[in-house]
């Protein structure tokens, strides 16, 4: 039997990349894309390949680097989450016109749900906007094949290709057989051609025309049935209803139709939604009275079908306009359409009773929370205590969960802690009002998008306290290294970039480094910093709150374990539960007071500093 591995979807994508001879892979971590680059690196190491990999500082940087490699003739790829493609959009739009020599694959992972994102935006529309082909896989194996297909297509037509795996591809696992891997052998070369590589608007018009010609040709190729686009119409048969689906929902609907044994409902599966396979879709539509479109997350296929009069989908209210199309939702959607059209319904009815039953159990709501021992908890506790009346602008990362401690009031996008702080400052200052503002941003987020906003804030005389939560890692997405710690993606040594020097270089004159585990010390520094922002000759005050992530480096984060217990002095004031919000602290009904959950307590001992009754004490072991 051939050797098979159980592979994460992102691992299958990584396998496709090395199998396609990709010579450079760049990425900025973001759920659900984060595992692609580490999986590439582990393949590269295992096979001894010469593939350049990097964690780039942001997605635009990642795309620009990969683009340059493709211009130099090499196959390259960059990986990011869907909102990361917004950051890289400037590059994408322009790269589409200029085109590439070696294959260039842009992997942008969508998050219908959303499970771990600000939006449910649909990468396919971004590809449509940029006028580049987009591939939409339904499972890990198809994603792997599409990587190789996309790389070939990109190279043949000299056009960037977008792969859009959704979270149920990225974080699915499937058994997959790896094939022998060929190393990319292309040597870098750059042929000067300013009218293309540095095109001015006059040449851009020509490049746009060329792009349109490429798209037309690719569209024709996509249009006939192929490995990714197919239907199961029977010859000369006519149907009351046909389903058009792409990506993950196409896998869901194939399972449902098979289980229900419904060969009276044909399926058109579309893996290449743009350029749209018009001829294939027309052929399918002509055999069906009605079409139901099931796609994630938006309405690309629905918009691109030429005759929309017979189409049911989101635009007609038949498919939910937000949220993930999980199997029970798809089942319900199709079943309702079957009934509406007077066709045989599915075998099973939706079980509303069981949902009622679960609802009536009043199960505890589990909200995500900062880990026990997390240094961010200490920072937020200190910030709220020192400057309680402030507006707390914050950012994207684990520390967004500071909202549980009342320490996060806003979260817009990467870097907006700083830009919104300056925006708020000017809005209130304009009215002659003094409004304290504290911005919190993580180290990785600051490296990603902090400096432009900070330069701007300093330049335009904004005043606020900036706290950089430096836990020396990109924690939320799975412990990727940051430029600050001197380690690269593959574990090799790197030049470590100093946050202090960047902040200073941006023109900030007040910089303090604190350890948030010293709550009292941080409190004092915060108050001093706030005074500086209010003083006549003051400005922006930056505090670097530095302590390692408790998950990434437990030993360094908690060098001395402090076992705590709650004494009978606890008055159940609940101050610790509400203001410190550590998952290891809970109200014990049997004892009638707060207690410690020993299974999850990190032994950081911070709560000793928090309890107003001094009822949390260290356990003295004899």
């Amino acid at each position, binding site marked *: 039997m051939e050797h098979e591995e159980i592979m994460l979807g992102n691992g299958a994508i990584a396998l496709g990349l090395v199998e396609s001879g990709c010579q450079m892979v760049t990425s900025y971590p973001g759920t659900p894309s984060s595992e692609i680059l580490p999986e590439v690196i582990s393949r590269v190491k295992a096979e001894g390949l010469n593939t350049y990999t990097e964690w780039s500082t942001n997605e635009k940087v990642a795309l620009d680097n990969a683009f340059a490699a493709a211009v130099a003739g090499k196959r390259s790829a960059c990986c990011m989450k869907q909102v990361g493609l917004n950051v890289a959009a400037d590059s994408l739009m322009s790269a589409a016109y200029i085109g590439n020599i070696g294959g260039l694959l842009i992997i942008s992972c969508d998050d219908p749900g959303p499970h771990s994102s600000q939006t449910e935006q649909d990468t396919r529309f971004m590809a449509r906007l940029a006028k580049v082909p987009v591939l939409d896989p339904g499972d890990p194996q198809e994603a792997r094949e599409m990587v190789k297909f996309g790389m070939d297509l990109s190279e043949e037509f000299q056009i960037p290709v977008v792969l859009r795996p959704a979270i149920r591809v990225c974080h699915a696992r499937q058994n997959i057989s790896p094939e022998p891997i060929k190393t990319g052998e292309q040597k870098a070369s750059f042929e000067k051609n300013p009218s293309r590589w540095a095109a001015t608007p006059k040449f851009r018009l020509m490049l746009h025309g060329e792009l349109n010609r490429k798209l037309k040709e690719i569209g024709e190729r996509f249009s006939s049935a192929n490995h990714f686009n197919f239907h199961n119409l029977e010859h000369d048969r006519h149907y009351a209803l046909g389903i058009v689906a792409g990506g993950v929902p196409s896998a*869901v609907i194939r399972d449902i139709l098979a289980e229900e044994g419904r060969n009276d409902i044909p399926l058109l599966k579309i893996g290449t939604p743009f350029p749209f396979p018009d001829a294939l879709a027309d052929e399918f539509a002509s055999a069906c009275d009605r079409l139901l479109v099931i796609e994630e997350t938006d309405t690309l296929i629905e918009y691109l079908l030429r005759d929309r009069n017979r189409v049911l989908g989101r635009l007609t209210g038949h498919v939910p306009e937000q949220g993930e199309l999980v199997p029970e939702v798809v089942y319900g959607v199709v079943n309702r359409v079957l009934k509406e059209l007077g066709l045989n319904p599915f075998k099973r009815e939706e079980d509303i009773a069981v949902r009622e039953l679960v609802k009536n159990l009043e199960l505890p709501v589990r909200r995500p929370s900062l880990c026990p021992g997390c240094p961010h908890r200490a920072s937020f506790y200190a910030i709220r205590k020192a400057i309680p009346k402030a507006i707390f602008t914050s950012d994207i990362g684990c520390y967004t969960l500071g909202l549980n401690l009342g320490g996060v009031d806003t979260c817009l996008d990467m870097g907006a802690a700083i830009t919104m702080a300056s925006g708020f400052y000017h809005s209130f200052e304009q009215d002659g009002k003094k409004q304290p503002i504290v911005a919190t941003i993580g180290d990785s987020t600051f490296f990603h998008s902090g400096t432009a906003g900070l330069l701007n804030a300093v330049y335009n005389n904004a005043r606020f306290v900036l706290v950089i939560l430096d836990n020396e890692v990109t924690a939320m997405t799975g412990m990727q290294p940051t430029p600050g710690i001197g380690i690269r993606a593959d574990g090799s040594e790197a030049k470590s970039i100093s946050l202090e020097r960047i902040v200073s270089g941006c023109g900030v004159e007040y910089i303090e480094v604190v350890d948030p585990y010293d709550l009292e010390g941080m409190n004092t520094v915060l108050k001093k910093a706030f005074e500086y922002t209010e003083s006549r000759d003051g400005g922006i005050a930056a505090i670097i709150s530095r302590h390692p992530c408790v998950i990434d480096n437990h030993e360094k984060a908690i060098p001395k374990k402090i076992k705590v217990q709650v004494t009978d002095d606890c008055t159940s004031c609940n101050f610790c539960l509400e203001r410190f919000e550590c998952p290891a602290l809970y109200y014990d009904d049997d004892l009638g007071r707060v207690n410690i959950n020993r299974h999850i307590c990190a032994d950081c001992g911070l709560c000793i500093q928090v309890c107003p009754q001094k009822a949390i004490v260290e356990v003295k072991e004899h």
Partner: protein
Amino acid sequence: METTNIVLCGLGGQGILFMTKVLAQAALDKGHNLMCAETHGMAQRGGSVVSHLRIGDAKGSLVQEGTAHLVLALEENEGYRNLPFLARGAGFYVNADRRKFPKEGLKPFFEQKEIRFRSVDAGKLAMELGAPMSLNLALLGFFSAFGDGPLTHEEIRTTIESITAKRFRDINLRLFDAGFEKGSMLL
């Protein structure tokens, strides 16, 4: 073969992913195709964690509500949260105090749907053996005693032995065996 749908649930940090990996690898070693769906990212920070495992020729990774043949819960309330996944005649295996399981008012539901509901205090068992973080193995051992689903006790045990890191192998097998013993006593 007909697809076997399994939902595994609990809280972040309880070892759902490892438990899923064991069953998936055992199924693969037996020559089955499989699809799993995992929880990553924000949801992992102490919240509810669910993973889906489909053994057979399914195309999609998610189990549809009402079609799970098995639900394995490392935490009792998380088990109840996932009740909608249970199919008629399914097996429901939960880490819970046997004296208090199941929660009041649920027996009629289980009986009406012909659901086999079984619990073991896996947390206590793991604590007694000095490995509170390995309660997932205890539940898996307990489950394996009933021969429910396409994998046998021996197949699951062999897989644990082959995929566990060396330093955890002994303790993992001890917990698995202890859970198995608890289950065997109920047969």
